[in-house]
């Protein structure tokens, strides 16, 4: 079972990211579960969402304490104490940042990969919503699901221009990272 | 608790089931319909019930209304014109805005019956029915005859004149056209009354003989003889009595020559003769020691003439010297040249009795060339001297029976204490006919109790709204010439509005108030009239006795009575 914890802020589409991930996984035949760390979300406040992917039914409903992956939608969230707590040994972090992965090597060591997702979202969508770009990069890094699965999940949620722009965005985002770089972790 | 009761799921109940529970058991008082006399009814000398016939008229049944009316007074076209209508004085509506124009409605019905020639509602008496003789075809005689007929008796009316009507013909045409008198009396006679003209008691037949031939005799000779009149024993040579002049005018259409006249008296005869004189160019005064009538403060010594007539007389130029009396006649030879008059009043003494007091120093002279007394007439005793015993009038009891005589009755102007109106005469006739019928059936005559009357306070006038009284059209003074009738009858539209003004005092108006306002649906409406004369039935199974219906009955027809 693969457990992903997504950190973000109200308004960044945090829960949507978890839902998209689970939906994409479901379309590829996985059993998946996604849910927010239920909160009275206000725009800008730090929020958490979870996604579980498994090859059999998932019955547990507890929060993800020891994720395999962290997706952090905002570099500033790193200032929140304990944000990477519980990450499994060997676990990986996808961080939304304009800086290179190396810039975080000191604090987060080699586990981190960065993506200028907000910048890209602004460019492609006209709005600073980093979630789909990060998801795309995540899928490409892990090789868990084909890009088409995410496209399919997006098609269920978005339409017309927004969908088109997102599809262009995820295509671009995928190219920004190295395919299957985290495959090993994902298959562990 | 009924253990077999099947309850419903979820506690619902079927509609209307509360009817199983009789809230009538809560009651300690109960409403009931109680007819009480309307004041118009109670105050009518003829005994008419205007409330009843107005109700029928209002219901769109004019012929039934007329039949109801003539079941009491067979001469409505006549009384509707000449009656001083105490009914209107009594009318509760007078306390609200203006009294109902009852006399106008009465006249309307009378005229309508003449116009349509509606038959008087009566069945012919059996051939062996007792036969009653009525002496005098004036209003009292005709009324008595009519009511004898209605009581299943045969009747013959005898009169000195060639046609029925009697004193009615002495009322000037401008007030009561002869045509109306003829139309009504002839139609009445056609109902089955035998009429024998040119009959004078003591000439054609004596009273004894009448008594022998007939089961009962009703005397209604009127007062065709004028009272003796003089001032300190002095009488002018060419004295003409008012009634005599009126009769002469009616018979020959001429008056003695005169330029100025003074009429003495305050009754309708005085007014009639005064107005006749004015119409003939005579400068006329009426002198009377009474007060002018004032509806606001009716006094016992008011002029007896109808206020309406007095007003019209004044409009036409009659001058009335009220609170005056004649002190002496100014004569040249035996012919009058004037009178000395003095101010006087009727004032009550310590016991409240009125006395005439003349005020010295108020004397003045009025120049006239005729003095016409109209101070009252007395009965002509011829043929019935034994009954009258030299009095001016015949003495009778409350039922019209002549004292000491088993089968002789009397009524109309001739009897003692009569007010002298046509309507009163009609009332005497009716009562006496009833007494005769009862006597002939060997029934005792009951004591006459005054009816229980509905007063203004007994009504709920919130359900009425102010509406102006219908007034008959009156000819302008300039057009009041000759014999033309001054007042026109009401139009159909006027009558419709006027009947709607009736409060229906003491009788069911079928207004639906009780039916509408009962919080317990305990007043049921019926298409047919219930036994108690209303169109509503109290449902005592449910009536809780709250009294709301009685409180809101506009006519005072519902009373709450104890019910324990």
């Amino acid at each position: 079972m693969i457990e992903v914890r997504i950190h973000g802020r109200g308004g960044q589409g945090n829960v949507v990211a978890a839902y998209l991930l689970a939906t994409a996984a479901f379309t590829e035949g996985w059993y998946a579960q996604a849910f927010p760390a239920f909160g009275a979300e206000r725009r800008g406040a730090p929020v958490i969402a979870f996604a579980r992917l498994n090859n059999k039914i998932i019955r547990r409903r507890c929060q993800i304490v020891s994720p395999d992956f962290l997706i952090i939608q905002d570099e500033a969230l790193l200032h929140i104490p304990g944000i990477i707590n519980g990450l499994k040994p060997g676990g990986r972090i996808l961080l939304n940042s304009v800086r290179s992965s190396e810039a975080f090597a000191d604090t987060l060591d080699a586990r981190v990969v960065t993506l200028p997702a907000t910048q890209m979202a602004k460019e492609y969508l006209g709005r600073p919503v980093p979630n789909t770009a990060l998801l795309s990069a995540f899928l490409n890094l892990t090789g868990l699901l084909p890009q088409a699965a995410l496209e399919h999940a997006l098609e269920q949620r978005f339409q017309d221009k927004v969908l088109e722009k997102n599809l262009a965005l995820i295509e671009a985002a995928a190219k920004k990272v190295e395919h299957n770089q985290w495959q090993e972790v994902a298959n562990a | 608790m009924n253990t077999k009761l099947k309850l419903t799921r979820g506690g619902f109940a079927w509609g209307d089931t509360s009817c199983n529970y009789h809230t009538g058991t809560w009651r300690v008082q109960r409403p009931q319909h109680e007819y009480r006399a309307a004041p118009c009814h109670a105050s009518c000398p003829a005994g008419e019930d205007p409330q009843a016939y107005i109700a029928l008229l209002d219901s769109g049944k004019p012929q039934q209304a007329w039949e109801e009316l003539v079941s009491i007074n067979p001469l409505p076209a006549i009384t509707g014109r000449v009656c001083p209508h105490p009914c209107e004085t009594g009318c509760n509506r007078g306390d609200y805005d203006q009294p109902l124009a009852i006399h106008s409605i009465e006249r309307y019905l009378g005229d309508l019956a003449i116009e349509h020639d509606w038959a008087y509602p009566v069945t012919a008496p059996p051939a062996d029915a007792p036969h009653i003789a009525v002496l005098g075809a004036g209003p009292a005689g005709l009324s008595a005859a009519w009511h004898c007929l209605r009581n299943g008796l045969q009747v013959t009316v005898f009169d000195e004149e060639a046609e029925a009507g009697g004193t009615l013909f002495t009322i000037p045409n401008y007030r009561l056209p002869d045509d109306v008198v003829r139309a009504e009396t002839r139609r009445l006679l056609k109902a089955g009354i035998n009429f024998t003209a040119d009959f004078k008691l003591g000439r054609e037949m004596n009273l004894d003989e009448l008594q022998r031939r007939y089961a009962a005799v009703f005397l209604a000779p009127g007062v065709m003889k004028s009272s003796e009149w003089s001032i300190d024993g002095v009488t002018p040579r060419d004295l003409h009595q008012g009634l005599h002049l009126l009769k002469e005018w009616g018979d020959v259409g001429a008056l003695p020559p005169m330029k100025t006249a003074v009429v003495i008296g305050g009754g309708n005869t005085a007014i009639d003769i005064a107005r006749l004189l004015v119409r003939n160019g005579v400068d006329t005064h009426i002198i009377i020691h009474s007060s002018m009538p004032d509806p606001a403060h009716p006094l016992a010594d008011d002029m007896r003439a109808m206020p309406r007539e007095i007003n019209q007389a004044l409009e036409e130029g009659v001058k009335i010297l009220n609170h005056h009396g004649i002190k002496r006649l100014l004569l040249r030879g035996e012919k009058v040249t004037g009178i000395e008059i003095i101010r006087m009043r009727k004032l009550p003494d310590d016991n409240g009795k009125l006395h005439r007091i003349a005020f010295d120093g108020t004397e003045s002279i009025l120049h006239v060339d005729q003095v016409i007394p109209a101070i009252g007439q007395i009965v002509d005793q011829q043929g019935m001297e034994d009954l009258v015993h030299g009095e001016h009038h015949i003495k009778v009891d409350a039922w019209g029976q002549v004292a000491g005589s088993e089968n002789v009755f009397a009524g109309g102007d001739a009897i003692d204490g009569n007010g002298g109106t046509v309507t009163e005469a009609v009332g005497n006739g009716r009562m006496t006919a009833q007494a005769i019928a009862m006597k002939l059936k060997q029934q005792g005559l009951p004591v006459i109790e005054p009816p229980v009357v509905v007063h203004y306070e007994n009504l709920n006038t919130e359900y009425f709204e102010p509406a102006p009284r219908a007034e008959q059209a009156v000819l302008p003074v300039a057009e009041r010439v000759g014999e033309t009738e001054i007042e026109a009858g009401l139009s159909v539209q006027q009558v419709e509005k006027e009947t709607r003004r009736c409060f229906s005092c003491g009788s069911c108006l079928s207004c639906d108030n009780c039916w509408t306002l009962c919080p317990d649906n305990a007043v049921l409406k019926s298409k047919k009239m219930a036994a108690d004369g209303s169109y509503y039935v109290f449902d005592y199974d449910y009536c809780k006795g709250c009294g709301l219906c009685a409180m809101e009955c506009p006519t005072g027809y519902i009373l709450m009575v104890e019910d324990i």
Partner: protein
Amino acid sequence: MLKALEGSQAIAQAVASCRPQVVAAYPITPQTHIVENIAKLVANGKMHCEMVSVESEFSAASVVLGAACAGSRTYTASASQGILLMAEVLYNIAGMRIPMVMTCANRAVSAPISIWNDQQDSMAVRDAGWIQLYCADNQDAVDTTIQAYRIAERTELPVMVCVDGFTLTHTLEPIDIPEQAMVDQFLPAFNFKRALNPAQPTSMGTLVSPDFFPEARYSHHQALLHAADEIVAADADWAKISGRASGGLLSIDGPDDAKIGILTLGSVYGTLVEAREEYPDLPATKIINLRAFRPFPVAALCEACQGLTDLIVLERALSPGYGGIVAPEVQASLTSVHAATRVHSFAVGLGGRDIPLEIYRKLHRRIQLEEPAPFTIIDVELERLPVEDYGVE
């Protein structure tokens, strides 16, 4: 067909497939997504009903009551404070024996205010006279919602489908939404015989005097007891059509000869089942999911508890001043047949406190004691309490 759906969305679709004619609701977290999804279905013409967006939960309950009395199938949903605001009407609906279905998106009750999940709200209206069914997962929520209409309409009792707020309502997972034809086959059109009808006027909600009140209450009580059969039958019949059963009155997972049992209501069930796999060294344990809390399935429970030495009742709410709410009823039910079974009452996950897998181990450790522990709120961290309140537990 399985679809990845958020629980609320699935419940909304299940409701739509039951074709209610009147839906009334007032927004409250975590019920909102259900109603929003219904509103979306209505707006897109995928659901045909009168949607009444009322001004309070009180009116929501009242609107569906009025609508049901007027002969329509209805739906409402609420949570927490909303359930309490409805309470008077909930009693009223049940007492009048009105069939209807509502979802309670279970949430803690203020104060202190909490938008997160526990089951204090539905427990607060335990005695209102509604059937209460608790759902273990979102598939269960879908199936139970559909079954609830048939149960309600056959028994003429209202059914409250209790779904853990957020834990289920906001969780996306693969859920099968039955085909419309399947639902139509299962659930006949609503025909409420006592519906208000001008052609045959009746009066509902009459004043019942002491002469009749005990009979009315008795009848209501009996109706709830008899509803157990309808709950079982509905589950069985729906299983024939859908291929899925929800366990009827309760379901059991674990070996028949287990000496230890854990009884739960709602979504913690799945967590416990998986937790058991995480701790294979702990004694064999039966996990009992109490689906029907009202009517309380005494007989089925006794059968399920055959051979247990210890039964842990996981409370998701409490009665302050006493303790657990479910455990006393369980204990009383078992007394006659399994007097020896020790019944433990532990509250977990109050106000949305996460219920991690290790709860399973904690529970086992708790029952090792000689004497059964008194009612305990498992995850309280006493040192966090103010000094004056310290040591309460």
